[in-house]
């Protein structure tokens, strides 16, 4: 995992030096990183490596999505677990539907796209409902939304309700081989795509608009930033990204129930990754996800699964107190001194 950290940093450094990298080059670099990661995971010759890496990558996607709205725009989405859960249950719904009618189950890609659409619509709705809410009220509204969604799914018998639902994995996938490896590759691609999206937004009119909104929304509106449009686009986009991240989850666990799909743990991890890495920069969630995610996976294996929650807690409290701007902020501070 540290291998990627190393290879990702030069990308950031060279971006800063040359000002702007051309898209073909960026895509090439991303593909190279992705290929290197795949080779690294393959080299373990062990399914567990894929599963551990999958979890880390999933949180990179979630953290990146959170960062676009929370880091660039200053709007804290407490309901990330809600969007994630909607993605999970879109996939379960499609799967159950295919079982019910005896049709072949939908390919994972279809589920992911469907989840992105549903969660994106939900994001749009959230953005629309909470237009007037600023700061912490937005956070509370998203939290409430997540609870409402959990209740709805718990009472929806078709997708298993409170009992949960089983999703059978295919043994192998043509061309990709082992299904765990396939899941890993899917998540790897999603992680790379979301980081690219985040990077593109950071340097676009949307990113600048969000930045202005974060500083002072009223002032931004006065200066001609279409705050409404910027916010709606962003809530839709982050919703879609979080939903997409949730879609493969039923296949990952093979059994889901509402409590695990909408867990607070998902929300806190989503928040923790960008904060540890550095809010408001595209590389932040990546660094945070790799650091915190790997430590958690390690703790899960060596200590216990309760310990990994404790680690998130301690890391959040200690790290945020000492370095509020995350790793990126620390690096900047050290450079400033040198």
């Amino acid at each position: 995992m540290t291998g990627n950290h190393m290879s990702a940093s030069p990308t950031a450094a060279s971006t800063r030096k040359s000002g702007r990298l051309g898209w073909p080059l960026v895509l090439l670099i991303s593909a190279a990183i992705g290929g290197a990661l795949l080779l690294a995971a393959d080299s373990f010759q062990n399914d567990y490596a894929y599963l551990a890496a999958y979890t880390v990558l999933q949180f990179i996607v979630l953290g990146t999505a959170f960062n676009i709205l929370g880091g660039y725009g200053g709007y804290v989405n407490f309901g990330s677990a809600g969007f994630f859960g909607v993605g999970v249950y879109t996939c379960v719904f499609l799967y159950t539907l295919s079982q019910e009618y005896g049709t072949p189950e939908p390919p994972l890609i279809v589920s992911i796209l469907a989840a992105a659409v549903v969660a994106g619509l939900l994001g749009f709705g959230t953005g629309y409902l909470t237009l007037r809410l600023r700061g912490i009220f937005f956070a509370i509204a998203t939290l409430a939304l997540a609870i409402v969604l959990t209740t709805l799914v718990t009472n929806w018998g078709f997708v298993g309700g409170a009992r949960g639902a089983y999703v059978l994995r295919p043994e192998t996938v043509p061309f990709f081989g082992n299904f765990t490896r396939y899941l890993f590759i899917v998540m790897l691609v999603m992680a790379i795509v979301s980081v690219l999206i985040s990077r593109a937004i950071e340097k676009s009119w949307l990113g600048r608009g969000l930045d202005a909104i974060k500083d002072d929304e009223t002032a931004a509106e006065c200066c001609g930033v279409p705050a409404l449009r910027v916010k709606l686009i962003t809530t839709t986009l982050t919703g879609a990204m979080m939903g997409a991240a949730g879609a493969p989850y039923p296949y990952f666990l093979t059994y889901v129930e509402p409590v695990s799909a909408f867990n607070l743990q998902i929300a806190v991890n989503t928040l923790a990754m960008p904060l540890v890495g550095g809010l408001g920069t595209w590389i932040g969630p990546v660094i945070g996800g790799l650091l915190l995610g790997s430590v958690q996976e390690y703790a899960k294996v060596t200590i216990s699964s309760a310990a990994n929650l404790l680690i998130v807690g301690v890391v959040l409290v200690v790290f945020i107190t000492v370095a509020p701007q995350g790793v990126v902020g620390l690096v900047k501070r050290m450079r400033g001194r040198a």
Partner: protein
Amino acid sequence: MGWELFVNAVVSGLLLGGFYCAVAVGITIAFGMLDITNIAHPAFVVAGSYVAYVANSTLGMDPLVACLLAAPFAYLIGRGLYRVYYVAFESREGESLQGLAFFFGLLFIIEVGLLMEFGVDYRFVEAPYMGPTLSLGAISVPLRYLVPMTVGLVMTGLLMLFMYKTFIGRAILAVSQDTEALRLVGGNPVKIKEIAFGIAIATAVIAGALLIIIQPLEPSVGREYIGRVFAICVLGGMTSLTGTVVAAMLMGVAENLTSTFVGPSWSPLVAFGILLITLGFRPSGIFGR
């Protein structure tokens, strides 16, 4: 028969509301008045429950007495916590998100700490008022709900007296209205907020005793209350203690009516539906100005 069911549901909703009030009053102080998003508040409540549990199971102490004795310590912990929070986040500009994450972290530290010490078994306390039920005609009032409601309302009443009658209480209200103005008249907002936050944590620990009287619990039960307490605080208009009482009652009755007539699994939908609608159409809450 339907009528009796309805009245009973409303009564037990009110009883539950009194307890909700005890849990939410600390959030009204910390979040509504001081602008500190203490998302770990319910975790402190659960910590209080475990204090009551330990005192009850080892010393046979009444849970309420145990938590009242623990409250001064909770107050000191709260003051210390605010000092850390102030130095690390509040004194720096524009880092409210970091402050939020700080409390999120704290929530998990408390929860997992309790989990490691006590495990996931459901714990409960024993007290003379756990069993009996008062019957007023067709209406039944279980003492294990009546006691928490009474304590919750008395605690909130005392806090109101404190806020409106004493010097420090008025200073806390002043901080919630205008920090700068308080500074101009010679008050030290940081110290006042420190005291207020200490009080908020103390109320959480007392509410913990009430929680374990009402239901057996395990460490992650607190999570169910995060959304609820913020909902009550917002519904009640953020800074208003009277609003908190009314909103808590409303929440209790709405939840109880839903679980009686529709099903317990639907009750969160109503409560948070109300919150979402309030936020969408009247963000200042019912009692907001």
